[in-house]
């Protein structure tokens, strides 16, 4: 993907000169429970989310079971107070502009508890629902990475202080604090800016589950904010086995900047768009839970035990945003002078 003008990459979010923490110093991963958005879940959805929050679970991931995961996450936001909300949704057979808007809106109404579990769809039937032919693997990966970069540019298209409400000059919003995104990707283009002001976290954390890594491709994996370790409880994983899996995963993470497993060594990290610590395990996701048969027993026990063994992050506290809990630094606003949305006025003034 290219933009019509150069723009800073996500790598600039963290100073490159400062050594990232070693694996041992990394924050502990947040424990998440995966809910599949089946219509049958509707009646007990709010109660279940609150119970999981009470049990100390750090985040919910919403996997697609029919109901739209972003809207289900939004629905749960005012009904919960501290749990993180991460829809797991496709980056390929979507309108990038709509997807970015929906996710940043989720961040607004959850007061900074939103994240995105990115997946790259490979099912021809899903492609056909939007009148497209399924892409091959290389094109799928390219599309996912392009959409991720576009979403971040849109999220970063309003400065935190763009809404000025200056009564004296009659100015509600300052166009000098907005920027176009000017994306010209292989299969789509987006002008921007976003139609939604900057959300509380600025850039939502974007995570990639190991199961979704192959389809999403290397560029997406490098640009993600971290990995998700899945623990499948459907086959009766014990707490001890879960602990071993987490320890192994945390120990296996290479030092930042070196070759990630299966990943290319980055020639110049500052220009690559790679996230500073994309290989870090930030989320441990419990999947395959039978929440009808045993809604809380398994989860509450696991949560308490893994926490007492020091393997997962403390229970979330209200007011703390998801980036902070995941160990990500705040996302600064980066204004690119070439993309400033008042450029037409500036050039008029110059020629005058």
């Amino acid at each position, binding site marked *: 993907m290219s933009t019509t003008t150069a723009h800073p990459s996500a790598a600039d979010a963290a100073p490159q000169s400062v050594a990232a923490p070693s694996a041992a110093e990394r924050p502990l991963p947040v424990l998440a429970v995966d809910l599949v958005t089946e*219509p049958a879940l*509707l009646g007990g959805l*709010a109660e279940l989310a609150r119970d999981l929050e009470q049990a100390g679970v750090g985040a919910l991931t919403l996997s697609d079971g*029919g*109901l*739209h995961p*972003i*809207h*289900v996450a*939004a*629905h*749960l*936001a*005012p*009904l919960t107070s501290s749990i993180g909300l991460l829809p797991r949704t496709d980056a390929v057979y979507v*309108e990038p*502009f*709509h997807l970015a*808007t*929906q996710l*940043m*809106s*989720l961040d*607004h*109404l959850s*007061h900074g508890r939103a994240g995105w579990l990115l997946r790259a769809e490979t099912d021809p*039937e899903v492609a*056909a*629902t*939007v*009148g497209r032919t399924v892409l091959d693997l290389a094109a799928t990966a390219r599309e996912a990475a392009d959409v991720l970069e576009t979403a971040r540019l849109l999220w970063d298209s*309003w400065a935190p202080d*763009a*809404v000025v*409400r200056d*009564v004296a*000059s*009659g*100015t*509600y*919003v*300052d*166009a000098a604090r*907005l920027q176009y995104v000017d994306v010209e990707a292989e*299969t*789509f*283009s*987006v*002008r*921007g*800016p*976003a*139609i*939604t*002001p900057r959300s509380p976290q600025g850039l939502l954390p974007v995570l990639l589950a190991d199961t979704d890594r192959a389809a999403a491709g290397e560029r997406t994996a490098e640009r993600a904010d971290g990995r998700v370790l899945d623990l499948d409880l459907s086959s009766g994983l014990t707490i001890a086995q879960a602990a071993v899996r987490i320890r192994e995963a945390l120990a296996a993470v290479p030092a930042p900047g070196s070759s990630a497993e299966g990943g290319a060594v980055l020639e110049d990290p500052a220009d690559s768009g790679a996230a500073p610590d994309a290989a870090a395990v930030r989320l441990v996701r419990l999947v395959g839970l039978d929440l009808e048969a045993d809604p809380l027993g398994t989860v509450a026990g696991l949560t308490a035990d893994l926490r007492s063994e020091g393997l997962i992050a403390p229970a979330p506290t209200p007011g703390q945003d998801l980036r902070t809990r995941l160990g990500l630094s705040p996302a600064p606003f980066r204004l690119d002078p070439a993309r400033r*949305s*008042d450029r*037409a*006025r500036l050039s*008029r003034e110059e020629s005058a």
Partner: protein
Amino acid sequence: MTTTSPTRHRARAERPLSAEAAALATGPAAHPLHPDHTPTGQLAFGAFFQGVNSSTIWRLPASGDQVAWDSFEALVRTAERGKFAAFFLGEGLRLREHRGVPFELDVAGRPDAQTLLAALAGVTERIGLVATQNTTYNDPVDLARRLQTLDLLSGGRAGWNIVTTDNAWTGENFRRGGYLDHADRYLHAEAFVQVAGQYWRGERIAHDGAHYTVRAQGELPRSAQGSPVLFQAGASPDGQDFAARTADVIFSPHGTLEAAAHFRRSIVERTVAAGRDPAGVKILPGAEIILAATEAEAEEKVRWVRDQQVGPEQAIALLEQYWGRDLSAFDPDGPLPDVPPEVAESGVTRGAGFQFAKAEELTRTWREEATQKGQSILEFARAKAGARRGTFTGSYDTVADRLEEFARLGAIDGLNITPWLIPSGLDDIVDELIPRLQERGVYPSDYAGSTLRENLGLPAV
């Protein structure tokens, strides 16, 4: 729908219709406007959180945050306290621009409508949740699924305000770009709505149309109301025909009784021609309500509201929109510019609510109009802004009497009200106007049911 609601207040003895209303009636009391239309005598209100444009005042200390969850939650709670049938959100898919720069003088930027409504569904119980969504720059199955998700999450309270656009400028944010001819936008929208309907009914979709090809399977259960309620604002003849064939609710603004009566006749005829029962198409014009205890105070308040809505900078920008050139050297308190427009078609300002027109002719007409009325640029701009809003103003009692007449004549089925202040802009409507409408027997004292269709008096689907 019957003429009395089960929850209706004790009606006062009905006053005779005013001379104005009586003059508009062409039939007996049961069918005053059209033989195929029976007034329900009832009004339903919607609350339209505009989000973007000059209708919402942002300059006052009481002006709340336009994006914060708290603003939306506070407004929807007030609306539900007032038994409003619907809470309605707008949408524009590109930031409005003026002379190539995002427009800086009005409220701008809002959250995604459906994502927000999915959250509001969790903190409300009865009020309908209506999202404006564009047929040109959405995929029908994706949009249908999101609307059905909202309908299921809310227990059958979802609505969709169907809007179309053909402008390529908005298309710059989307995969297809500007692909649609102006003349085709309603054809496209109709095909889109058909595909959405198939999805909601759980059907296998194999659509090969002029603009897209879709293969999909509806996979979600029906909601408590069957499928989302369809809103439309079509005012042009094509738009009215589209609405008569497709919509459950029409909300284009008609501030005068005469205009509303005329519009009702037009819609009834088009609905009958389309083979539908006219009782299945409700008319809730977009409206602004400015109230006070007395007539004199209300008059004063309208002036004050207009002053807050349209400042000197916005007045100049309004003219620049049509003149197509920099008019910042003109005094807002002086006469309209005596310079010719620089463009043939106004197009320097783009986005929701901005108008396109033949510039030469329009600017000349405006200059004449302002000269005749002795209006300055600022006065003219404020008058123009107000004229677009379908404003009802007066004392609580006057406005209640007037709305009673609209209801009894059957000119409208309710109003879609844009508060001029967020989040407190519905307070006086709920606390002062609605009790008076209830006393007059034209507004429900409680929700008729749990779904939006029930609360609008629409038949189940």
